[in-house]
């Protein structure tokens, strides 16, 4: 089972690597067709990325996500402890 954990983490690392890899290779040999053609003069949050402020948003989102997940993990462990306690009482009765 420890193998699974290591495997999962490896998959995650690989995924991150692939995603950050510039999509140059893909763009060269396969052009994706869009139903409405992509244009260069479309407004995107480029300025936001250039001066780095998008990372603030990512940090905030990750903080919220971390908070919610920690809450869920805490809840999970509390239920686990209760399960154990109840089983003990049941066995020792």
């Amino acid at each position, binding site marked *: 089972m420890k193998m699974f954990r290591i495997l999962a983490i490896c998959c995650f690392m690989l995924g991150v690597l692939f*995603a950050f890899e510039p999509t140059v290779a893909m763009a060269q040999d396969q052009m994706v*067709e*869009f139903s409405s053609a992509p244009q260069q003069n*479309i407004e995107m949050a480029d300025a936001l*990325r250039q001066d780095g402020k998008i990372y603030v948003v990512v940090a905030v989102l990750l903080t919220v996500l971390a908070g919610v*997940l920690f809450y869920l993990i805490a809840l999970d462990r509390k*239920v686990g402890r209760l399960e154990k306690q109840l089983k003990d009482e049941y066995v020792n009765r």
Partner: protein
Amino acid sequence: MKKNWWKILTVLLLVFTVAVGMLSEVPRLAILNETIRNLYFHVPMWFGMILILLVSVVYSIKYLRKPSIKNDVIAHEAAKVGILFGVLGIVTGMEWAKFTWGEYWSNDPKQNGAAIGLLIYFAYLVLRSSFAEQQQRARISAVYNIFAFAALIPLLFILPRLTDSLHPGNGGNPGFNAYDLDSSLRMVFYPAVLGWTLLGVWIINVKSRLELLRQRIYENV
């Protein structure tokens, strides 16, 4: 910790979704602009809802074949989490629609179908709470749950396709189809769907265990 590797996978997938989903390159399309990133957060709510409600139906069928409190509890908790995902999906959809379609609610067939589908599931909760006797409640709500899922599929996936719709993938509106969903979107979209669905399964897991504990305590008292 041994059986919980999938919970770690959930955390990793969600962190990946938020971080890479915000930072990666996305197609430049008119009207959508950066809101195309909602694909990683709005759409997985619906994918997650369908998968989680499918879990609920499976446990309802299991209950009818072999009545046990565990099957009933899991079916109920899964339905509740599925409804939560559906409500989040419809609210995020309205927010997105306001800035791309111009209105929060434009009576689009997809929106109406989703709303009716959710109402059918709200009725499931009402039905459940109207029985005092446990076995009766479990059996009748299991039957209703199967009906509700069977009604939800045409409402979400068939009826909107038969008429004009603003929503991508419906009524001759191509949207994020095979051509549009390019590999840079897919790279985050599939992990996002898996991550959000697993989060729902995790919540079902914790809530069902808590409910089963509660029932065991009542038995012992």
